[in-house]
């Protein structure tokens, strides 16, 4: 794609440049402040006591000894929590449990004390008597009649959620299909493993307004949750200020509010002091949420030419004991199910089932990796059955610009075909090619939202922009930077539009008192939505500058451009005025003015209607991944030798950061495929540490190529689409397909451990 800004016909100065992350130097010097680093005067330390059982009645709880311990300021139990204080969209999760515990991560008491050590000692002094109940850990068994109920009041372990769609006629299409494949897949619990553990500091002012410093990806929605908690506490019409410290990793983990945040609020209110709760690593593993695990039943068919005829999927999701965003992942799973490749007849049904396990949340890809694992694995099976080349079947069915998918998605730009080309260029996909024993290649594609995702009443983001007398800009954005680089994207967009340098732009994204509303850093939407918001504000300021400059320079507005920190007329280069001079002239003249603008961008996408139809995102991101693996047939160990992840990103605003998103996503995806799993045994986390939760180390790092396909999306800021999540979406099926190619076994359960590969190889031999 060319490097010309279509608006100005000038070459881009800032967009498309590998500009290092704006806060990187601060971080490299160890000066960035994370929640770990914040200490407020008079601050107390809160700690949480968790359940000792997966399912039990609390018969007796005695906190008297804990309360007597010197240094303890407050001890709270379930009784102390207002009745209406419940978390999650299903409102089934009080921050401290009363009467009954339903999982090992259930909070049963909390303490605030003058030091973390005293708080911990106090927890040890709390006496609780439990009466153990029969528990249920298998979601499919939890649906059976005689299964114990996780929540008696709910009458059933199956949640009342509407996850069902059927477009076209799947039954008929199956009858007419030339080839049909059918398989069962399972995916595991994995977790975000943010290097900075979770934490929050809550404090009330004299008027009972709340300030909370917290790791969140959703400052505005968190504010709403906290306001609801205050209301439940009898504090109506109060203010909540959410301040985000530097965030040590997000990946979806901070998309809902957690018990510890609400407990910090309760403790701060009880003590009238700032209260900090900071998780240790074990707590981070046990008491924050996972990716949604699934059991997937899938059927896909095609005609004799390889054209997909139908896709039929059914899932059972282990909801755990409480409900967070994991239970809504089917809304995103629908996207690949209905719209990855052209397929007219589609059916999907998902049941979320309560168990006494941990509950799930959002995690990079939000259901898409699970669904894509089943879809792309069975697509290879189908290709083999139909005798069609695996790349060819993807080309036959590829999405194309202008498509309207069965779910009503309008495909504006689509570089899927180019992405497949890019993969083929890097990794040989020809099955007939001679390879060493144990070597195989695989491919898988993806679709993801790339232009926002209207899953809430608003998908908007606000930006406020002000310029000072020296040509510097402050941008107050609703968007959140958690390391992915939204600060850069915002600064680059504003700098490009205003003819400034990136260092002229200061991006403020950390405080709901000064930043406008945003629905959150999720759904790969920040570059697109927050980027468009910043661009909108910059355009407004630009118009004012040009109009004022036109008067000052006595030149028509349409002849003027902003470039190199100046207002400039290509026809009259001598008539240049530095921007700071212009700003001072504007400020220090009679009836002076400061240049400021605000803009709220709410994309023109649609909430999904009754049948889940609607254009969820303004545009969609596409990609294809290819991988070459070695399978050790004696040990079952899979080694990734080469990896290529090609993505249609619309336009790369900052290739350096974009590649970082892709590399990070791919390794997270490879971990999902091969090594990562939160192991639960009867509801209890068995590997709550980095020794047994197998993240890749630097020594495992692999060669990744990340070719970028630029399709220039007409709705994106300078043509850009989102790229935060796609890197980890088709990774597992690409690897599973490569393993099949290498040694002829189809692994249907994640993670693909050496045990599973070896078992499959043995079964094949028999």
């Amino acid at each position, binding site marked *: 794609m060319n490097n010309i800004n279509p608006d100005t016909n000038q070459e881009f100065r800032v967009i498309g440049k590998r500009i290092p*992350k704006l806060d990187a130097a601060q971080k490299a010097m160890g000066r960035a402040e994370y929640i770990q680093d914040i200490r407020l005067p008079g601050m107390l330390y809160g700690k949480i006591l968790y359940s000792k059982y997966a399912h039990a009645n609390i018969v007796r709880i005695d906190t008297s000894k804990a309360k007597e311990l010197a240094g303890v300021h407050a001890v709270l139990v379930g009784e102390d929590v207002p009745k209406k204080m419940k978390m999650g969209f299903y409102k089934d999760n009080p921050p401290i449990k009363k009467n009954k515990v339903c999982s090992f991560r259930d909070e049963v008491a909390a303490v605030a004390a003058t030091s973390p050590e005293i708080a911990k000692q106090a927890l040890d002094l709390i006496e609780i008597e439990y009466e153990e109940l029969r528990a249920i850990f298998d979601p499919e068994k939890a649906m059976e009649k005689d299964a114990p109920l996780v929540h008696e009041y709910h009458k059933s372990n199956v949640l009342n959620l509407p996850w069902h769609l059927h477009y076209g006629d799947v039954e008929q299409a199956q009858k007419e299909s030339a080839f049909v494949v059918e398989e069962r897949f399972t995916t595991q619990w994995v977790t975000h493993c943010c290097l900075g553990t979770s934490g929050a500091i809550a404090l009330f002012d004299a008027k009972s307004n709340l300030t909370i410093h917290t790791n969140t990806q959703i400052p505005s929605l968190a504010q709403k949750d906290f306001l609801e908690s205050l209301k439940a506490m009898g504090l109506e019409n109060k203010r909540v200020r959410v301040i985000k410290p530097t965030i040590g990793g997000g990946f979806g983990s901070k998309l809902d509010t957690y018990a510890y945040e609400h407990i910090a609020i309760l403790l701060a209110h009880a003590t009238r002091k700032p209260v900090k709760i900071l998780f240790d690593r074990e707590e981070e593993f046990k008491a924050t949420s996972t990716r949604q695990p699934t059991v997937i039943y899938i059927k896909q068919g095609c005609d004799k030419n390889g054209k997909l005829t139908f896709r039929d999927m059914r899932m059972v999701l282990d909801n755990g004991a409480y409900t967070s965003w994991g239970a809504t992942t089917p809304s995103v799973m629908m996207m690949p199910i209905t719209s990855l490749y052209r397929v007219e007849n589609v059916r999907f049904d998902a049941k979320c089932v309560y168990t006494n396990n941990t509950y799930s949340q959002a995690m990079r890809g939000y259901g898409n990796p699970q669904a894509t694992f089943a879809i792309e694995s069975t697509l290879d099976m189908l290709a083999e059955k139909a005798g069609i080349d695996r790349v060819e079947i993807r080309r036959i069915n590829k999405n194309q610009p202008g498509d309207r998918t069965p779910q009503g998605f309008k495909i504006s730009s689509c570089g899927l075909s180019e992405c497949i080309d890019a993969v083929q260029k890097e990794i040989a996909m020809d099955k007939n090619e001679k390879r060493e024993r144990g070597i195989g290649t695989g491919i898988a594609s993806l679709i993801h939202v790339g232009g926002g995702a209207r899953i809430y009443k608003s998908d908007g983001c606000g930006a406020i922009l002000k310029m000072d007398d020296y040509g510097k800009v402050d941008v107050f954005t609703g968007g959140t930077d958690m390391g992915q680089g939204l600060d850069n994207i915002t600064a680059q967009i504003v700098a490009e539009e205003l003819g400034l340098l990136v260092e002229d732009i200061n991006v403020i994204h950390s405080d709901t008192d000064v930043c406008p509303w945003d629905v959150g850093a999720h759904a790969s939407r920040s570059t697109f939505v927050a980027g468009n918001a910043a661009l909108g504000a910059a355009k407004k300021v630009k118009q004012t500058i040009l109009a004022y400059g036109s008067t000052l320079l006595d030149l028509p507005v349409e002849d003027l451009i902003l470039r190199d920190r100046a207002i400039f007329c290509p026809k009259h280069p001598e008539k240049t005025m530095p921007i700071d001079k212009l700003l001072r002239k504007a400020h220090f003249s009679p009836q002076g003015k400061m240049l400021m603008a605000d803009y709220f961008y709410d994309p023109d996408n649609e909430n999904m209607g009754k049948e889940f139809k609607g254009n969820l995102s303004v545009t969609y991101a596409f990609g294809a991944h290819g991988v070459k693996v070695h399978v050790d047939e004696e040990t079952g160990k899979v080694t990734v030798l080469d990896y290529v992840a090609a993505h249609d990103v619309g336009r790369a605003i900052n290739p350096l950061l974009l590649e970082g998103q892709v590399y990070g996503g791919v390794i997270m995806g490879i971990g999902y495929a091969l090594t990562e799993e939160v192991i639960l045994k009867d509801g209890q986390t068995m590997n709550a540490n980095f020794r047994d939760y197998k993240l890749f180390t630097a020594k495992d*790092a692999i060669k990744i190529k990340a070719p970028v396909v630029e399709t220039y999306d007409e709705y994106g800021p300078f043509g850009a689409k989102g790229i935060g999540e796609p890197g980890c979406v088709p990774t597992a099926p690409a690897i599973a397909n490569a393993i099949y190619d290498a040694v002829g076994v189809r692994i249907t359960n994640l993670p693909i451990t050496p045990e599973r590969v070896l078992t499959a190889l043995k079964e094949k031999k028999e």
Partner: protein
Amino acid sequence: MTTQISFLLNGDEISHEIKDHWTLLHLLREEMGLIGTKEGCGNGECGACTVIVDGLAINSCLYLAIEAHGKHLETIEGLAATDGTLHPIQQSFVDEGGIQCGFCSPGMIMSSKALLDENPKANHEEIKHALAGNICRCTGYVQILESVEVARDQISGPISIQEGRGECNE
């Protein structure tokens, strides 16, 4: 159970009263306010708390402060020049995208420094071996390894392809 210890911290002579059971991480962060060294796990499994003691990278979460007595400590705060100029390793981490959320970065940079101080021509495999104890969840390590290689070239001058550049840089 307090003890007076003295040590060199980033070149400065420090004398500090400590409790015997304090970890070096506790001394640095909680008592001295040096927040650059991070705690990611507290059990020596993530490397976020890496500092250099007498030239060796160590996990300060598993190292008693009292054992720092008489030793030369380097922490992330000591890397940049007093005029704010970043150390070549810090600069390359900034320039090459080695930093995203930044929580692992101080430890990662200190591990890199210990390596390049000892082995200024470390090759790709040696870098991977030396950084294996520093977990990063954001970058997939690709740009981190590139950062260290760029810093190495900056410090040692270009080395032959056979000697250095590994797979991630092809």
